[in-house]
């Protein structure tokens, strides 16, 4: 670790991984509710559980991005972070806000209160006071990192990272726009939801991936930067108007069907570019970096993001197809693999890379970490397949044959049971990962231990 303030990342990664544990645990509970629908119905209604599952995901991914920024910006701009105190204050606000959301929802407090009550909008359901807190925390963050970068060296990686984080934060302001008209509400809603995950987050992803490739493969910065700019341009070109694929059936004019279909099909391209980028860099690079786990997560990120976001996204993005598949388990299949591949793997890659450095225990315990990659990824991929098959059957029974929703759900039970099994694998993988990067104090397997097989 070259700069003391990189240590800030450690606190962010720790909170992120705690929320990661909450997220997958809630996922497992929800998976069980799918096979035994009355499970916890009185204590933890499905909608609250789902909110916890998705919100903890979004918050821990964001905390991971913040941590990544605090880790890589000092190294890139060759400066200490402007104010470590502000960085910790920012984290404290986030933790307080997150706790506030959880408590408000679990006990259904202050219902209907303008400031304290929840807003009941999927993903941006936080009470208003929490939203204000998020904005304040985001402003602190942007101030802190922008001051650091402005005072130091500006690289393509910091440029694209800052661009992504700035637009991301500005877009969150639409969380305060809540028209009575449901169609308009949804229209603005996607300005956040879509333009985050299929726009600004991709910029963050590309720049973090570029940083990792630079460090892990030793390829020239010039080459990495060229790729980074191309990926960023492609992401914005396709992603912005790609929002149209959410405007197919919400009451917006019909031309959105064509804009959405065509531009969102193009969204496959930046994900393909990111996957190619990761592999080409590894082939070109001759540096044999000891942190193989970080490399594995980076390559896994590119590959699974391409399949999850790219291929599974394209699967149901054309409006002629989406007319039938909208809101079926196909969407769930896509959502799980896309988020896992693109953003979970990305965060786990930078955590795998940074943690040994942050804790002064350079490469240790690679095997457990890599095993967790295969266990978790295997679980999510299996889950994706079960949900895809469930969605295909559901589409046919419900949308083509016109059977009733709940009758169809009964017939999908076997898929949900298999999905639960894959969920167990994911949770075990997550626990193993967290153990692998936090607990062991020395390398588990040391040099010279190799013995002939017997």
């Amino acid at each position: 670790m070259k700069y003391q303030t990189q240590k800030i990342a450690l606190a962010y990664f720790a909170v992120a991984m705690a929320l990661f544990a909450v997220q997958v645990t809630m996922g497992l509970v929800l998976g069980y509710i799918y096979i035994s629908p009355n499970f916890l119905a009185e204590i933890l209604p499905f909608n609250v559980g789902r909110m916890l599952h998705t919100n903890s995901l979004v918050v821990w991914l964001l905390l991971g991005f913040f941590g990544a920024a605090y880790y890589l910006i000092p190294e890139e701009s060759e400066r200490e972070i402007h104010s470590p105190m502000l960085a910790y204050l920012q984290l404290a606000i986030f933790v307080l806000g997150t706790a506030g959301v959880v408590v408000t929802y679990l006990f259904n407090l202050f219902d209907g209160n303008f400031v304290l009550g929840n807003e009941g909008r999927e993903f941006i359901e936080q009470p208003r006071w929490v939203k204000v807190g998020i904005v304040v925390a985001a402003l602190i963050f942007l101030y802190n990192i922008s001051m650091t970068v402005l005072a130091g060296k500006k690289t393509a990686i910091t440029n694209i990272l800052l661009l992504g984080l700035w637009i991301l934060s500005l877009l969150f302001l639409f969380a305060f726009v809540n028209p009575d008209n449901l169609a308009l509400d949804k229209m603005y809603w996607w300005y956040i939801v879509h333009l985050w995950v299929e726009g600004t987050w991709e910029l963050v992803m590309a720049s973090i991936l570029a940083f990792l490739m630079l460090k892990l493969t030793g390829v020239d910065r010039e080459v990495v930067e060229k790729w980074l700019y191309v990926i960023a341009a492609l992401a914005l070109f396709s992603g912005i108007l790609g929002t149209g694929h959410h405007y197919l059936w919400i009451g917006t004019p019909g031309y959105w069907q064509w804009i959405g279909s065509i531009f969102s099909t193009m969204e496959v391209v930046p994900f393909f570019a990111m996957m190619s980028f990761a592999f080409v860099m590894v082939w070109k690079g001759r540096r044999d970096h000891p942190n193989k786990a970080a490399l594995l997560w980076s390559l896994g990120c590119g590959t699974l993001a391409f399949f999850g976001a790219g291929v599974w996204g394209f699967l149901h993005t054309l409006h002629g197809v989406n007319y039938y598949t909208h809101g079926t388990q196909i969407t769930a299949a896509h959502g799980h693999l896309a988020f896992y591949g693109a953003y979970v793997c990305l965060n786990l890659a930078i955590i795998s890379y940074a943690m040994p450095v942050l804790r002064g225990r350079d490469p240790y315990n690679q095997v457990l970490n890599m095993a967790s990659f295969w266990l978790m990824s295997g679980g999510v991929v299996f889950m994706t397949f079960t949900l895809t098959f469930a969605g295909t059957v559901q589409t046919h029974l419900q949308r083509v044959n016109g059977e009733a929703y709940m009758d169809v759900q009964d017939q999908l039970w076997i898929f949900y049971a298999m999905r639960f099994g894959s969920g167990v694998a994911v949770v075990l993988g997550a626990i193993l990962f967290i153990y692998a990067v936090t607990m062991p104090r020395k390398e588990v397997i040391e040099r010279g231990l190799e013995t002939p097989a017997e």
Partner: protein
Amino acid sequence: MTALHSLSFSQVSSGGPGGDAPPASPSAQAPDRPDPFDKLPGEFMMWVLIVSELLVFGAGLVAFLALRITDPTGFAEAQSHLHRVGAGINTIALVTSGWLAALAVQAVEAGRIARMRTLLAPAAALGMVFLVLKASEYADLAAAGISFETHAFFTFHILLTGFHAAHVLAGIVLLALVGILARPRAVETGAAFWHMVDLVWVLLFPVVYLL
């Protein structure tokens, strides 16, 4: 177990102490084969944009003709409301404008800034001619009560030509900017954008206006 052992052995043994900056092997960089994309004339990022735009407009044109199969008479009737002659004149306006822009690139590369500007000005002006003719067509359609929703033909016609016209407008602004900047690289890049606008139109025109 053997697999695990040898796997971890190769990781730990090769790295040395580094987590952050491990010693690179003697040739840290693979000997670079000449990258074929380095041969692209002009700014690489502009080519990324050009190809992206071509893909989008190409997909739009294919979807348009595919949809036409379902209603050939409706499409033919709708097409009769367009300004065919105006669109034909616009083709000439754009290819001529593209020619002026290409000459402007040669001028600025030869260091002749004044000549470059006298070439870019009419190039941009022809872009304005294009927009005026386009606007008169839109105005007539609007006067006839025709909009996006009237027929699938018009959904596509307005989307495709509207997107294209927005690019013409952006191109005019870009030509003005690079004309002021007067750096060869900038002029070349601005002209490349303008040629892309030109290229999209020559493909779009027959499909939407003639067939």
